């Protein structure tokens, strides 16, 4: 994928094509090429679809009548808090980065600091979810114990996998921001931030499903 040095100067508007032919140009304003903003939204849609499938499966499965409610460890709420905090710190990182048009070192360092905190929170969330699994196991609730525990492990596990994807994205941003000559597209930052916020929203939804349904 091509990278351009930030800040990317938008290319000059192309001259209008000749109109004397009588052909109407239904053009769009020039856009920076190869900088796709739609990708992250399309990805979010696909992930939403997958979790919709899991939810439908949960509802159908619940119809079997062997539903035994699970008492979720309290740690899960702390993890939720950590994930939500990480969204706030990431937002700070994004603002610090985008407010520095000339990429002053100070602003970049500020952004890096917030990114580091976000990464730490993200890792803490995943570790926290693992500890939730350990606590469930200590209660005697394993993946195959009953249908509710199966769904609990599957939903949290698949969500954690997606969070790990986000952690990879955050690490990539940090690695790109460390060198003196920063080569990072504005859209890379925005896309990673959107994805990370979505992880938080998705988790809130899953937490609702877990506490109400499981």
């Amino acid at each position, binding site marked *: 994928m091509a990278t*351009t040095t930030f800040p990317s100067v938008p290319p000059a508007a192309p001259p209008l*094509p000749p109109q004397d032919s009588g*052909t109407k140009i239904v053009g769009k304003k*020039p856009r920076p*090429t190869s900088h796709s903003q739609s*990708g992250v939204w399309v990805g979010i849609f696909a992930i939403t*679809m997958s979790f919709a*499938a*899991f939810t439908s499966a949960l509802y159908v499965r619940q119809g079997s009548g062997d539903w035994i409610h699970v008492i979720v460890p309290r740690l899960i709420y702390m993890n939720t808090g950590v994930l939500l905090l990480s969204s706030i710190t990431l937002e700070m990182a994004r603002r610090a980065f985008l407010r520095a048009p000339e990429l002053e070192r100070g602003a970049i360092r500020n952004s890096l600091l917030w990114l580091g905190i976000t990464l730490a929170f993200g890792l803490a969330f995943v570790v926290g979810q693992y500890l939730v699994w350990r606590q469930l196991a200590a209660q005697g609730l394993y993946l195959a114990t009953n249908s509710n525990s199966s769904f609990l492990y599957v939903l949290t596990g698949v969500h954690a996998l997606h969070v790990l994807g986000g952690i990879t994205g955050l690490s990539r941003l940090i690695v790109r921001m460390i060198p003196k000559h920063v080569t990072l597209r504005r859209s890379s930052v925005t896309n990673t931030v959107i994805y990370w916020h979505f992880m938080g929203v998705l988790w809130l939804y899953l937490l609702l499903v877990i506490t109400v349904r499981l």
Partner: protein
Amino acid sequence: MQEHSAQEAHVHAPPEGFLRKHVFSLDHKVIGKQYYGLGLTAVIIGMVLSWLMRFHLVWPTARIPGLELFSKAGAPGGVITPEYYLSLMTMHGTLMVFFVLTNAPFAGFGNYFLPIQIGAEDMAFPRFNMMSFWTTFVAFVILIAAFFIPDGPPISGWTAYAPLSAVGNDAGPGLGWGQNLWGISIAVFCIGQLLGSLNFIATTLDLRTKGMTLMRMPASTWAWFITSCIGLMAFAVLLPACLLLILDKNAGTSFFIPAGLVVGDKLQPHAGGSPLLWQHMFWFFGHPEVYIAILPAMGIVSHVLVASMRKPMLSAKVILYSMMSIGFLSWLVWGHHMFVSGMNPFSSLLFSFPTLTITIPATIITLIWLGSLYGANIQINSASLFALGFISMFVSGGISGFFLAQPSIDIYLHATYFVVGHFHMVMGVAAIFGIFSGTYFWFPKMSGRMMNETLGKLHFWFTFVGTYCIFMPFHYLGLVGNVRRYSSFVDDFMAPLLPVHKFITIAAFITGGAQIIFLFNLVYSRFRGEQAPANPWNATSLEWSMPSPPPWDNFGGKHPVVYHDPYQYGVKGSKGDYVMQDSPEAIVEE
């Protein structure tokens, strides 16, 4: 001299080194060819499997020399066991549906031509693109590995119905590690297709060149775009389904396995799962998958036909709207695969209605093709012959769909060869005809050489007549009650049908053999074919405004500017009866 947008294209650097150029390439054109090659490999394997099945069906005790070396357990002494017949069937279906019908018309041609047809230098995410191909390749290797493990390939069919697919070897051979490999392969395949679909959508939305509005995109691009939207939703559901199936099978969960299930005289240690849940999840993917296979072929056929007719379609826009309607309705009809599954009969009615409705846009598209053909001075060549053949297959196979869409008729026909005939014609062979049409049409652009027309026409007539000989009799067999999925027909009531089966088997061998003409043509033309000009068909879309084969950066580092709708045929242009999309000249009706 063509006008170009002043905007420089930001392309990746020219590829260097063998690996980057030909193996782990970021170039959408190389990736498109890789998908096509994978599809070609899969279709050859899938066809050989169908030969083995057809042979076994009519000569169940005959020996196939050498087969025992391939599978000792499945073909002791070279004679296929009934279980191995089911393994072959599973692998045939899986290879054909996933690795041929999804790979070639959508991922293959789509990767190659979608960016070019919208005037982009590459896909939006070239690295994702490379990853999506190699992920698909890994899925293929995992699936094929099932042939070489002691357990053998699964016997559960390409639909892998739970609970039998979820309880392991108690239910039969191949359901241990064979089924695991199947599940892992399909899950990995889903990831590859999701990455691919994401890329297609983002590319179409973000990378269209100046003047290339959505309504100016060629029918083929529209078809790939709609298909990628369907694929994004369908594979996003199959992936969780595969995950749950793998967990049921290996981790002891009970998503799909009910309580008290006894298989192989053993009580299965599961409780409360719903076998119908698997069918719902599978077919929620499975029916849209039919359109993932057929829509790109429809796009290709429209694209080829209009260039061969030298006049515009009656209404290209209505074709687009109909394709969108098919895409939308494809989400409401999955239950018509489950009329005999034991679900609530009232649900059957609910699924029957949209299924019958979906025939309306399909019929509209067909009528527009036929109506446009009326009075057209059609240029007959291999590409247009296969496009016409597609219409024939689609109509012949589609008509039986009207019957199967109604539960009262489907209940009788569902487990018979009628269904086999229906889906092979309307989805399988029709899509393959689309692939052939696209191959003959675009080969000059992809390779810089023309394909041999005489061989192409010979290939068409063998394939066209042959496929009718194979699949039409299936319908008659089904109507008289010939059940499907059986490995031989020795019962009294089916024995009289054996001559028909023998006819089909012989036709299958001849038609399959005729594909050697195509393979020869493909290889021979690649090296010895006539040099192809930039625009051999005098066609209008952007792929024909660049040299054949295209340079690595497509448009030489610039973006073309688009002035016209895609199909300006039958007009007075400076080059003849057409005006190219990127030509600034005015359109003068003839």
